């Protein structure tokens, strides 16, 4: 990585995420690996987190379908509604750098909007939110994902983490916590 223009090559990206996945398995850290090594552009890693939050509004139409509960299935009062946050680390070919995408959904699978995500991540009132998390197409899945804009990633990795043995870990541990994803300190050993 001597050139500042090319922050990371595809091959090194793959090596770094494979390292992360391997250590994750040792640590039972729940990172998942996607893609086949023979299909160049299909590789990314992901991790899910769950978060409980306020219940959503009720859809009136469904009430017609309901039956009275007389079976002996206990109602365990698990009324807290759950939010799933899924983080993806993929390679962005234009910026030649890793990108962090995330999507958040309710239990029924409906996605949260960009504004709702800001709210859940606690930066509704933040002035820089527009530059931080925006909507872009996932480079592998080609579906819109909330994405930490890659325009600064190259600079950050090029200037601050160029000595790291695994710049993705260094970059993630700096950036991901802002978006609610903590990186276990054990990964630090990959960087030196």
């Amino acid at each position: 990585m001597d050139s500042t223009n090319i922050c990371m090559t595809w091959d090194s990206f793959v090596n770094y995420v494979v390292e992360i996945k391997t250590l994750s398995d040792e640590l039972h850290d729940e990172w998942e690996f996607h893609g086949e090594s023979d299909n160049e552009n299909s590789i990314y890693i992901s991790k899910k987190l769950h978060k409980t939050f306020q219940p959503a509004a009720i859809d009136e139409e469904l009430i017609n379908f309901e039956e009275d509960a007389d079976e002996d299935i206990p109602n365990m009062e698990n009324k807290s509604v759950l939010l799933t946050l899924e983080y993806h680390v993929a390679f962005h070919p234009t910026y030649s750098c890793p990108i962090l995408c995330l999507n958040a959904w309710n239990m029924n699978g409906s996605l949260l909007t960009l504004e709702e995500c800001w709210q859940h991540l606690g930066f509704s009132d933040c002035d820089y939110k527009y530059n931080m998390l925006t909507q872009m197409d996932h480079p592998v899945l080609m579906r819109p994902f909330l994405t930490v804009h890659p325009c600064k990633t190259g600079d950050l990795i090029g200037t601050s983490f160029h000595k790291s043995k695994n710049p993705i870990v260094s970059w993630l541990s700096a950036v991901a916590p802002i978006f609610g994803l903590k990186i276990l300190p054990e990964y630090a050993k990959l960087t030196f």
Partner: protein
Amino acid sequence: MEKTKLLEYFPFSSSVNPSFWHKLTEIKLDIDKLNENSRKIWGYYSNLTFNACKIPLFEVDSTSFNTECNSQNNYLFAHGILLNKNTIEQFKDCNKTELIQNESRRVWNYIASGEALNNPSLLNFFFILSFADLKKYHYYYWFCFPAPPRISVNLLEIVSINSIFEKDMINRLSNNYQGLDQQQKSFFVINNSTTNLEILPIKSIRTLEVTSNLQEYYFAFSDSSTSSEHPGWFARNYIALLLYNCPFLSEKTINLLAFRLSRDGNEINCSSSIVFKIILPKINIQDINPENVWLGWERNERGKFGPRLCNMKTSIDPKCLAETSVDLNLKLMKWQLLPEINLEKIKHAKCLLLGSGTLGCSVARTLLGWGVRNITFVDNALVSFSNPVRQSLFIYEDCVKNRSKAEAAAERLKNIFPGVNSKGYNFSIPMPGHPVGESLLPQTKESVQILTDLISEHDIIFLLMDSRESRWLPTLLGTYFKKIVINAALGFDTYLIMRHGFRSENEEDIVVPETSMERVKSIPGHKLGCYFCNDVTAPGNSLKDRTLDQQCTVTRPGISAIAGALAVELAVSLLQHPNGAKAPAHYKIGNQELGEETHEECILGIVPHSIRGFLTTYTHVLPATEKYKHCVACSDIILDEYQKHGYDFLLRVFDSCKYLEDLTGLSEIHKEITDLEVWDLEDTTDGDEESE
């Protein structure tokens, strides 16, 4: 007798990954189509307590549809069936009792055939009843985890695994568990008769006898529950399996080990597991077969037995995706560069494009770029073979099919962006000095009516026609209805973009421009002229007395794109100006141009009255001119006359443009100035500004 209570089971909470709906949609549209056959799917759950999640999740995602199960990490899998109905009625009316009976027979057969002993993961069974409304992208669904009814298990006590086994034994157990085959992980047996804890496959219960020492056995299962009092749901099927295979366990006390994982630093271990000491009931095994309806429908968000609904329109419907992306692109501009820009005002501006030629196409495309949703075209021509190469909304096919330009343009706009509300009207705009014969009277009257309605219904009127006189009526009407009127006209290598003055009788409408700059003057919005204000003749038949090659003005091909784009940008600037159409226009005296030093009038910069461009020198000048009190289109005399006589007045003008000159006093002026022989003025607005 010991005081006991009944064992209750903690049900799952289903959690659907959006990718499940994406995949289901794909399969329904491309493979299953109207086929309603059930489909094998996979579900996932975990016995690892997630950090903050106290809910036993049962997840499905796009990999649920894979032939082979490929769950990663600490997920356990369940065998499932997707029953996707074709209509909402079938979904609603299908017999739920019959359904659960049919599906629970599968589980019962696994138990009865002994298959479940070899592959205990078969006890993890679920099905989803669903209906996918692929017009609205609404997904109705209902999870069911069938389990036998009426097995009353008495709970004696709950003991932590830590108080039963030593720490190193627990660690060894954790390690051995990780090494288990995926199929065997969900249900297994632990024997502690020897010094070493031994993990046995579930089929080892066949070797159990009445005389076996049950206290040496722990009937273990990977437990999804996070509750300290209840085991997870699949324990029900486990107990049925035990009773079916070992009837002698009835009324015996056994150890049910809820095997749960938790994180301890870098390690995962099973020290959060608990043992339920229970007394299995005495039952007649036929009382729990599927002829007795099994349980397992999931409660919905309100705790009722009913389906759930997922609305995926905004994330699956391509039209919604297009709209969101278009708006997001504009929002990025707002967020990153222009926080004060009012995008809603632009989005909801109703734009009327009079003329669907090179200018009309270019204006429409730029409007789309700004997120404008309401665009109406008017034109009287058909798409001709010369059009598509210059007029960006048309294709060759349109000429072959003789399509009307307005209608073809409106439809093409929808092809480009389905979120636009575009319409096309095919009619001629009546013109001064083009007498209307008897036979054309009804048609003329109708055209005037449609044009009047269209102008009154829209917010911005773009004049993009190919002749001067066709601009007269819309100029008059636009002024009369107090609309923003943007005029664009082309010469061979010159162009003019102009916003018409805003008519106002009210004092408060008058915005007095402030300018302290030297050599900069300004004209308030209500005093700005229109396209005709600089003329001293009424628009007549400009195509008369010209040779054929002059009737259709030739232009450099790039000009219409430049002029069209400028017309839209001027309109957008005007919309963003705090005074809107009343915004004053500044101009400089002498040869200087309005430059950087001009104070910002709106967030997008200055809002000139007119932009004249010269391609030969690649320059613009921004003159501003005052309204002319004798103007044949926007003067009070004309507007009063229109207000008084309406259509009759218009008809007289169509018959003779001389009438306009008489009315406005231009005829008088002509008489006076003929003597002076000064005609310099007229040359500045020569006829070659118009083109197709």
